[in-house]
């Protein structure tokens, strides 16, 4: 099942299972040969060099198909051979979290058998693939497009790793074809078009928040061109995600929200949650193992975490109806597979929670380094719906759950210092693995109005200096581009690595401040780390206050400053143009009148 979740997670699985849980290999014979095969990859990766990673990237490309295959054999359900070539799959994964919350992850995967990579090919026939996106892809020569809208912050410490990580707000990253000459122009237009398609403020993406990471992002699909000139990455941390973003997103689905799993997406429930993230990922993939034909893959994912406490009643009990206020009645008729998975890894004998209806089908997959066991409900089978013709999954917790395994990697960040002049960004990365060191690629994009001082950059692990083996730093240009900092750091086992860098806050023009700047100015700085097995971790966005001018008095300031300049001008002008003369007081008025009369009379004047 989770095979198509993300290639990203797949690789990490393999390595991870060989490293962190070597014991689990013995118990699960099925995947044993696979794991052994991939052990070599992990060795390559752990060298931690950039070259190693690039290699890994390529290997990942090639392993994708294999894993797909191994996965499908695990589930004993082969992919339907591509007769119609276009294909649609939908799935819902439910993972009960130990905090009592519940994590539901939808994935809709549309395959479209069209080769866009060939230039000049006009495509006018759309069957399952949304036409709006297809046109965008061909018009702007997009090779890969990843967009996510997230409300809330994923709490790694409580919830573990998400299937697909995403930063708060909107995130967009796009690879363009290497035939594109004006990448920035295409990017600008693309963001505006996407802004219309998703009803989001993506049009606020401009050069000041766009970066071109040199190492942090690789194409996830076909193609090995990694020239980062064709990559654009931007985040809008202030973006508020709401119903108006969900509706256009649902419209991209072949069945809309009329049938299938999409029926569950009622916005008043989805947004009444601790975490909501919807995403669209488009990439070119191989249609078959030999990669003889290419296809476009559109993955629409929606992740949501429902909070136990906001749901109203104290009982630890979940059902589809309670979560979504709907039940499932049918699969999407266009879908080739439609399934609901429930993660029962921590609950093999049903001692933690109880599922009803129970299912005989079990699936296994390796997600993010963990071997997980799932109960599978196939919606394409009539017996899933029972006599009531409706499927309502009920999950009842039996007792208090134990603690979660601490995630191996997690990161947090905060701003240190006081006052509005300077500050220090601290990024703390934890490696909880008892004996393994991980190479981590840290990417930091800081808006220009925070002036970073790269010479103050310190990286310390275990109170010792930890020199990054690779640093790519692009300083900001005022009002033109943000800072971009990428570093490859080796995290020692069981350690806390602290990255600090000092910054100075700028005073902006009064028109440049965001609304309500006195309250909070979000200068958001997403950090990404990629270790050699491709886990991406986003840290929380930062709130940074900036010094503000008084917005109410531009006229006063203009008048007062000009007055001072005029005083200077006036006094210099006075001294430059006039000369000193003895002040002769003018004679009194009576004398002047008398002199006037005397002049008329021709009599000598009075002195």
């Amino acid at each position: 099942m989770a095979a198509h979740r993300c290639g990203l997670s797949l690789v990490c699985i393999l390595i991870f299972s060989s490293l962190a849980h070597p014991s689990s290999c013995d118990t699960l014979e099925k995947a044993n040969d696979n794991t052994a095969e991939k052990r070599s990859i992990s060795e390559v990766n752990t060298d931690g060099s950039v070259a190693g990673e690039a290699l890994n990237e390529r290997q990942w490309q090639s392993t994708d198909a294999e894993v797909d295959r191994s996965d499908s054999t695990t589930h004993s359900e082969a992919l339907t051979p591509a007769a119609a070539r276009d294909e649609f799959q939908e799935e819902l994964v439910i993972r009960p979290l130990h905090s009592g919350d519940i994590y539901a992850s939808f994935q809709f995967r549309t395959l479209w058998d069209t080769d866009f990579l060939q230039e000049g090919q006009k495509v006018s026939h759309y069957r399952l693939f949304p036409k709006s996106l297809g046109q965008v892809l061909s018009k702007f020569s997009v090779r890969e497009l990843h967009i996510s809208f997230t409300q809330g912050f994923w709490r790694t410490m409580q919830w573990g790793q998400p299937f697909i990580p995403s930063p708060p707000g909107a995130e967009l990253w796009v690879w363009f074809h290497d035939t594109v000459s004006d990448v920035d122009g295409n990017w600008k237009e693309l963001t505006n078009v996407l802004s219309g398609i998703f009803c989001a403020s993506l049009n606020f993406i401009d050069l000041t928040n766009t970066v071109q990471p040199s190492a942090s992002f690789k194409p996830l699909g076909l193609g090995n061109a990694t020239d980062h000139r064709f990559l654009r990455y931007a985040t809008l941390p202030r973006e508020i995600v709401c119903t108006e973003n969900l509706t256009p997103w649902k419209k991209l689905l072949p069945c809309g929200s009329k049938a299938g799993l999409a029926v569950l997406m009622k916005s008043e429930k989805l947004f009444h949650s601790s975490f909501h993230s919807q995403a669209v990922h488009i990439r070119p993939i191989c249609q078959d193992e030999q990669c003889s034909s290419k296809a476009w893959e559109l993955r629409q994912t929606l992740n949501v975490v429902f909070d136990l406490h906001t749901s109203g009643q104290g009982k630890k009990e979940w059902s589809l109806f309670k979560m979504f206020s709907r039940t499932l009645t049918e699969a999407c008729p266009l879908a080739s597979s439609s399934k609901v998975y429930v993660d029962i890894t921590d609950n093999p004998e049903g001692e933690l929670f109880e599922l009803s209806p129970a299912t005989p089908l079990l699936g296994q997959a390796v997600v993010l380094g963990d071997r997980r066991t799932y109960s599978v409900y196939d919606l394409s089978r009539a017996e899933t719906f029972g006599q009531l013709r409706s499927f309502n999954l009920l999950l009842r917790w039996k007792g208090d759950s134990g603690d979660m395994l601490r995630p191996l990697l997690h990161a947090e960040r905060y701003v240190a210092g006081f006052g509005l002049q300077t500050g220090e960004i601290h990024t703390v990365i934890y490696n909880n693995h008892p004996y393994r060191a991980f190479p981590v690629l840290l990417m930091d994009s800081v808006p220009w109005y925070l002036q970073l001082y790269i010479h103050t950059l310190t990286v310390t692990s275990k109170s010792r200096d930890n020199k990054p083996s690779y640093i790519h730093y692009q300083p900001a240009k005022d009002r033109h581009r943000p800072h971009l900092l990428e570093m490859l750091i080796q995290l020692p086992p069981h350690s806390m690595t602290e990255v600090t860098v000092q910054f100075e806050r700028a005073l902006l023009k009064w028109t440049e401040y965001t609304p309500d700047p006195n309250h909070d100015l979000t200068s958001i700085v997403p950090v990404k780390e990629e270790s050699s097995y491709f886990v991406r971790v986003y840290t929380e966005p930062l709130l940074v206050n900036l010094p503000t001018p008084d917005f109410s008095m531009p006229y006063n300031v203009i008048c007062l400053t000009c007055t001072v300049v005029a005083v200077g001008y006036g006094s210099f002008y006075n001294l430059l143009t006039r000369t000193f003369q003895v002040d002769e007081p003018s004679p009194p008025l009576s004398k002047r009148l008398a002199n006037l009369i005397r002049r008329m009379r021709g009599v000598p004047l009075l002195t």
Partner: protein
Amino acid sequence: KTVCDLNLSSVLMNSNLVHRADSFFLATKMAAPLTLLLIVAVTIRAVLFRSSWAELISERVEVVSPLNAWKRVVEGLALLDLGVSPYSGDVFHETPFMIYLFHFVVDYAEIVFMVSPDLVFCLSRFLTSLKQKYALESDRYPADCLELLRSPKEMFYIPLKVAMFYLLNPFTILSCVAKSTCGLNNAIIALFILCTLKGSALLSGILLALATYQSIYPLTLFAPALLFFLQRLYIPVNLRRSSFWFFTLQYAFIYVGSLVVITGLSFFLLGSWDFIPSVYGFIFSVPDLTPNIGLFWYFFAEMFEHFRLFFICVFQINVFFYTIPLSIKLKEHPVFLIFMQIAIISIFKSYPTVGDVALYMAFLPAWSHLYRFLRNIFLVSCVLLACSALFPVLWHLWIYAGSANSNFYYAITLLFNFGQILLVSDYFYAYLRREHHLTHGLYLKKKDGTEATLVLK
């Protein structure tokens, strides 16, 4: 009448002899206080460098500007080490020469900053030579003006006073402890003045070009330097005289030639012209609105977008605007013209710091003979002192305590600049008035014989 003339000449000869003897006597006497002053000044700086205050001072917006902050120099060097052009970002705005200077002496930066004010101090030793000549020519002035002229003894203490004013000025000390490169720029300007006063046109032209290269504004010092040389060579300022044009072109050629050479050299050092927009574009277009003691920051933070260009032009013109009228008015007094120009630069430049203020304040003891004509020196000194004390207070209230807003700090910068303008125009007034008295006598009488008052008309 001849007896009287003879008497006068013998008196003058006497005074000359006395003066020479005096000067020799004083020269030996001066060495001790000068050395003492130097030791005191260096000790203060050394102590402050080592204290915890140094870091605090180097963050003060009054002391460092984006153009000359030491932190930014270090950042530029760090970028260079990372293989990134320091001018690709908006942190570093020093000239390429500065990078290469500090590339080699970054470890000895403190020493460089300690030495640079001493260079200025050297200047003060030579300021006097001009003044003495001036005093000896004074016999052509009316007799009752003798009290306006300075006694040779007074003159001789001027270098010490100038040195004291510069070296012990808190503004200079702060700027030096913050390692602001403003101190180096001041040293270049001081060397330029020194070479000019010594009469070396070549060195003066080169140093002026260097000063211009560092911060564009010293461009306006071209006029006073030229006037000084013309005066020194007894060439009248007459547009129809070929000797005037010959010398002017010669000096202009030295200046422009060295400017071109220096700029070309920086291009070859760096291999790109990136530094032009990053240094001079930054100075002219004022993109960084970090508060400082000048007039620009708040004005352009509050400016309406469509008027920005217009007002930038208006504000930048202020520095250059007064050069021609001042040169015409003060063409006989190029040294005072230099003082006026430096003062105007430090008031109207886009990123002023207290180091710039300290440079023109160092000249003030040289005009000690103007004190009797200053009209509101008490008020101005109070304003400047109060502002200097209030800068950190209001900054703290705005930035750290949050109990005040930007208007408070702005008000103080406004007042500070107002005080500076008053100070400079007051000195200008006093200088012109003294000139008037030197030609017309100190005790002017009206036609009816009563005491007269002088007015500007």
